[in-house]
C-alpha cells in the first residue's frame, strides 16, 4: 500500500526540486550496492535499451533526415542516407511553387490550441480548487463524473454537434472548434490540476488562514509556488491534445478554419515525387508538440495517467 506514490505526497516533495534526470537515477545507487555484480548486468541492459531506443527513434530520425533530402534522393531503394542536404522540401511545403501556404492552417491550429488551453485553465483551476483545497461534499463523485465524460467517444456526440453548428452557422468557425477542444480537455485538466493542488501542504494553508491572509495572497504565496509546475504541465498536455486533434476539426471546419492536421490530410496528393515534402510537413507540424512534450517530460506521466501515477 505504501508503495503507491499518490499515498505519499510528502515523500515526493523534496525530490520535485531536483532535475528529472537526478530523480530518475536517484534510486539506482542504493540498489547497485546490493547487487553482486551490477556493472556487467547493467551493460547488457544498457546495450539492449539503447538498441531498442534507436529502433523506436528510427522513424522519427528518418523523417527528419528525409525532410532535408531532395525528392529524388528521398525515393530510392536502397535508401540514400548520405545524400546532399537541402531545404527544398521545406520551401515546397511552404508553397513556393504551388502557392498554397500552410500558414493559415498553422495559425488556426495555434489559436485553437492556445485559446482552448486558456479556457480550460480558467474553468479547471477553480474546479480543481473546489475539489482539493476547499473541497465540496462528495467531491470524489464529482471527480468521477468529470472522468466519465472523457470516456465517451467523440463519435457518439459528433453528429448532433455538427448539426447544431450547421443550424446556427458555426461550421468552419474557429470559435466553435475552440469550445469543442475546451470540453475535450477539461476533464483531464481537472484531474491533473486536482492532483497538483493536492500537493499543497495543508498545514501551510491552515497557518495562512489563521494569520488572516486573504484568498489572493494564499493563491499567490502558497498555492502558486507548489502547483505552478503542475499547472504548466497541464497546459502543455492540453495544448498537445488540441494540436493533434483531427476528427472534430475535419468534420467541423473547412477552408477558413481548417487546422494543420486537416491541411496535412489534404496536402498529400498521391502523385509524383513528394516524399521529402511529406516528411518536411510532418516535421513542421510535429515541432510544437515535440517542444511541448519535452518541456513537460518531467510531469508527462502524472498528466497522462490523470494524476494517478507520479
Amino acid at each position, binding site marked *: 500500500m505504501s508503495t503507491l*506514490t499518490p*499515498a505519499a*505526497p510528502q515523500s515526493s516533495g523534496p525530490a520535485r526540486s531536483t532535475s528529472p534526470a537526478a530523480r*530518475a*537515477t536517484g*534510486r539506482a545507487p542504493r*540498489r547497485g550496492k*546490493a547487487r553482486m555484480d*551490477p556493472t556487467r*548486468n547493467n551493460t547488457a541492459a544498457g546495450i*539492449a535499451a*539503447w538498441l*531498442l*531506443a534507436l529502433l*523506436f527513434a528510427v*522513424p*522519427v530520425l*528518418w523523417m527528419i533526415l528525409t525532410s532535408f533530402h531532395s525528392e529524388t534522393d528521398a525515393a530510392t*531503394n*536502397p535508401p540514400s542516407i548520405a545524400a546532399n542536404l537541402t531545404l527544398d522540401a521545406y520551401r515546397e511545403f511552404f508553397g513556393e511553387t504551388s502557392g498554397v501556404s500552410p500558414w493559415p492552417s498553422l495559425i488556426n491550429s495555434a489559436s485553437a490550441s492556445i485559446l482552448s488551453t486558456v479556457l480550460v485553465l480558467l*474553468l479547471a483551476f477553480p*474546479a480543481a*480548487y*473546489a475539489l482539493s483545497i476547499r*473541497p*465540496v*461534499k462528495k467531491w470524489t463523485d*464529482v471527480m468521477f463524473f468529470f472522468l466519465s*465524460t472523457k*470516456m465517451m*467517444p467523440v*463519435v*457518439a456526440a*459528433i*453528429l*448532433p454537434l*455538427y*448539426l447544431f453548428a450547421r443550424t446556427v452557422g458555426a461550421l468552419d468557425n474557429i470559435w466553435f472548434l475552440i*469550445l469543442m477542444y475546451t*470540453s475535450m480537455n*477539461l*476533464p483531464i485538466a*481537472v484531474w491533473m490540476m486536482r492532483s497538483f493542488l493536492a500537493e499543497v501542504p495543508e498545514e501551510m494553508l491552515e497557518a495562512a488562514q489563521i494569520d488572516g491572509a486573504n484568498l489572493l495572497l494564499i493563491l499567490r504565496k502558497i498555492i502558486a509556488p507548489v502547483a505552478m509546475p503542475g499547472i504548466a504541465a497541464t497546459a502543455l498536455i492540453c495544448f498537445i491534445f488540441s494540436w493533434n486533434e*483531427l476528427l472534430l476539426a475535419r*468534420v467541423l471546419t473547412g477552408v477558413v478554419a481548417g487546422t494543420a492536421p486537416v491541411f*496535412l490530410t489534404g496536402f*498529400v496528393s498521391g502523385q509524383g515525387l513528394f516524399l521529402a515534402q*511529406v516528411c518536411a510537413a*510532418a516535421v513542421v507540424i*510535429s515541432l510544437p508538440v*515535440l517542444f511541448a*512534450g*519535452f518541456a513537460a517530460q518531467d510531469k*508527462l*506521466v502524472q498528466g497522462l*495517467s*490523470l494524476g*494517478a*501515477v*507520479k
Partner: protein
Amino acid sequence: MTTATARISRPGRNAATPSLNARQRERSLAWARRAPLLPALVFLILVTQLPFVATLVISFMNWNSLSPDKTAFAGLENYATVLTDPDLRQAIFTTILLTVSVVLISLLIGLGLALLLDKKFIGRGLARTLLIAPFLVVPVAAALIWKHALLNPTYGLINGILTWVWSLFGSTAAPQLDLLSQAPMMAVILSLVWQWTPFMMLILLAGLQSRPMDTVEAAQMDGATPWGIFRHLTLPHLRQYLELGGLLGAIYIVQNFDAVFTLTAGGLGTANLPYAIYQTFYFANEYGLASAAGVVVVIGTIIVATFALRTVFSLFKKEAAR
C-alpha cells in the same frame, strides 16, 4: 476535507438549537464552496451530455438528410442494422481486434523497455528521451510517415533496408514487403503500437520506480533469483500500473480515427467504428444509423470504462484518504 467544514460549521452546531439564521449561513457557505465548480460542470454537461442525448434520440429515427421527407420514428431498426449489416459488424470486430492487439503488444514491449530503463546505464536520460519521441509526433503526421516513408512498397525505408541488407550478401533478390495492401490491419497495428509503447513504458517505469526497494534488497540477500524477484515482487506491484496503462490506452485506441483514416482510409477491412460512423453520417448521410452505431460504441466503452474506473479508483482512493 472534514477539518475545514468542521471549523466553519462549529458555531452552528455548538448552539443548543441551531437558529434559522445559522442554517442559512451554513447553506450559503456550502454554495460558496460549490461556486468555483459550477462553470466547469455546467459547461461540460452542455457540451458533452446534451449532444449524447440528441444522439440517443436520433438513433431511434429513420433520418437520411438526402431524403428529409422520409424522416420518421424507426424504433430499433437502426440497431438491428448496426448488428446485421456486414460492414458495420466488421467494424465492430475490427475495433475490438485493433484495440486488444495494440494495447497488449504495446504493454508487453513497454514493460520490457521499462525494466531496461529502470537499470542504470550510460546515457539513460537520452535513451528515455528517444523512446518518448514517437508519442510526440502528431498522429496524422506519424500515420503519413508510416504510409509513405516507411511502408511504401517501392521506396519505403523498410524495403530499402531489406534491399540493402541483401545486397551486402551479394543478392539482388531481396524480399519486399507490401503491408499496406497485403496486411493493412498489421500496418495499422504496427504504427499504433509504435506510438503507444512510450505511453505504456512511462506509466510502467513510474510504477517500477515506486517499488519498495527494501523488500527487493531483502529478497536479494536471501538469494532470490532475478526471475523470482520479478515474478513474486515486481509483477504483483506492477499489476495496477499494467491495468491503468491498458485501460487508459484502450479508451484512446477504441476512439482512434487518425491512423485508420490516413493509412488505409478504412479499406480492406480496417474500418473501425469511429471511421465507419464518420463515413455513415458524413458521406452516406445516414444520420439515424450513424447515431445507433455511436450508441453501440458508448455501450462498449461503458463496459471497458467500468473496469477502468475501478482501477483508477483503487489508485485514487488511497490518495483521497490522505
